[in-house]
């Protein structure tokens, strides 16, 4: 019937839309967080005095402001990206539980990420009028939101992996290796929590283990899951594939 076929077609298109929002989120972050905003590679350092924070931000004021706009766009798209994944795992679950938990983690993760962009923007709003330590605090807060939030983003990955790995052959929303890749991503986010204990070196919020590792893993993970959503909708005859 045309009605059912139409609905299936609708699902395939909307899942592809969600996959594309993941890709756009990565591109927007590369523009806003990397090329303009100075979030990574990090412009600031946690062991700098507060005055140095103000000086560096004043010097790059416009770039950070424009970068923050792009970051906000990028982070807000985590919502539709995560909802797409949950919609596909939901189709494979008879009584959806993991899919609902995923939606909660998606919502929480989106709020946490959006707050990163808020802090980044406020930092560049009036750095000369704020007390310098307040500027420093906003930068600290932004990085803590991004990498200290391991259980939110790692938990999200784990509840994506579980319904994949626990499903039977032929009823799987995504291929099994995608499940393992999610577990791996969760492991790579974990060292982010070290930022509370160090102000310099590889475990501080500008360091290779606590910043670069989780950020690289996170955005590669988004690209992987976007690809997985595209792959699930490859076949024109069914709304989405099972593996």
């Amino acid at each position, binding site marked *: 019937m045309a009605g059912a076929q139409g609905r299936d077609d609708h699902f395939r298109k909307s899942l592809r839309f969600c996959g594309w929002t993941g890709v756009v989120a990565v591109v927007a972050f590369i523009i806003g967080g990397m090329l303009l905003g100075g979030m990574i590679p990090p412009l600031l350092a946690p062991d700098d005095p507060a005055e140095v924070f103000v000086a560096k931000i004043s010097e790059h004021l416009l770039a950070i402001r424009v970068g923050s706009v792009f970051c906000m766009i990028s982070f807000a798209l985590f919502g539709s990206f995560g909802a797409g994944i949950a919609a596909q795992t939901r189709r494979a679950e008879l009584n959806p539980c993991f899919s609902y938990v995923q939606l909660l983690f998606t919502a929480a993760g989106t709020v946490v990420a959006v707050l990163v962009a808020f802090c980044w923007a406020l930092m560049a709003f009036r750095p000369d009028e704020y007390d310098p330590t307040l500027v420093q605090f906003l930068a600290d807060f932004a990085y803590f939101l991004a990498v200290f939030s391991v259980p939110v983003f790692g938990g999200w990955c784990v509840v994506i992996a579980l319904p994949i790995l626990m499903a039977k052959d032929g009823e799987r929303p995504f291929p099994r290796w995608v499940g393992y890749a999610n577990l791996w991503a969760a*492991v790579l986010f974990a060292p982010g929590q070290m930022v509370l204990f*160090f102000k310099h070196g590889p475990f501080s919020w500008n360091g290779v283990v606590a910043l670069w*590792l989780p950020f690289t893993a996170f955005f590669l993970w988004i690209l992987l899951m976007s690809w997985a959503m595209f792959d699930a909708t490859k076949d024109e005859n069914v709304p989405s594939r099972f593996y």
Partner: protein
Amino acid sequence: MQTPDTMSIATAQAHHSARVPGEAGIWIFIAGDLLAFTLFFVLIALGNGDQPQVFARGRASLDIGLGVANTLLLLTGSWLVAAGVETSRKGAGRAASRYFLAGAACGLGFIANKFIEWSHLIRLGASPQTDDFYMFFFVFTGIHLFHVLLGTVYMLVLSRACSKRPAGPERDRFVECGGLFWHLVDLLWIVLFALLYLI
């Protein structure tokens, strides 16, 4: 041109070596974890080059005997777990279950030993903030300890699964993946032990 002979040898070899232990997906996880730890190893080696005295002093304060004991515990655990995988594949679920329980006991021994070692070091006044050696020592052995904890829980789950679930390809896959994770934890410790205690 391929003669029929070489072709049949080629297909025979291809058939012989097409096996993927566990399943393909877990090797993505293993490769990922190996790469992350390779970064950790390189950081330790670079730190050692930057501050040789700090690292030598830190190393001298460690009890190598405890480190060796932990290495032997994980190696013995690996031997028991590998035996469990073999046994489970043969269909002897109860015997396999005992091997995995013994493997989990090795994991618990490792954790208890780490607790003794760390509490001794902390009583001596060492902490991750003391210097770069202790920073690397506590953080990297801590991340590894978390792996051991996961591995121990996985072995307990396998021990139960082998006595409850019927033998077959599904159980084989679950059991082999558990074995692979355990051995990964073992081999990461081998390198960490050499870099942090021995050099």
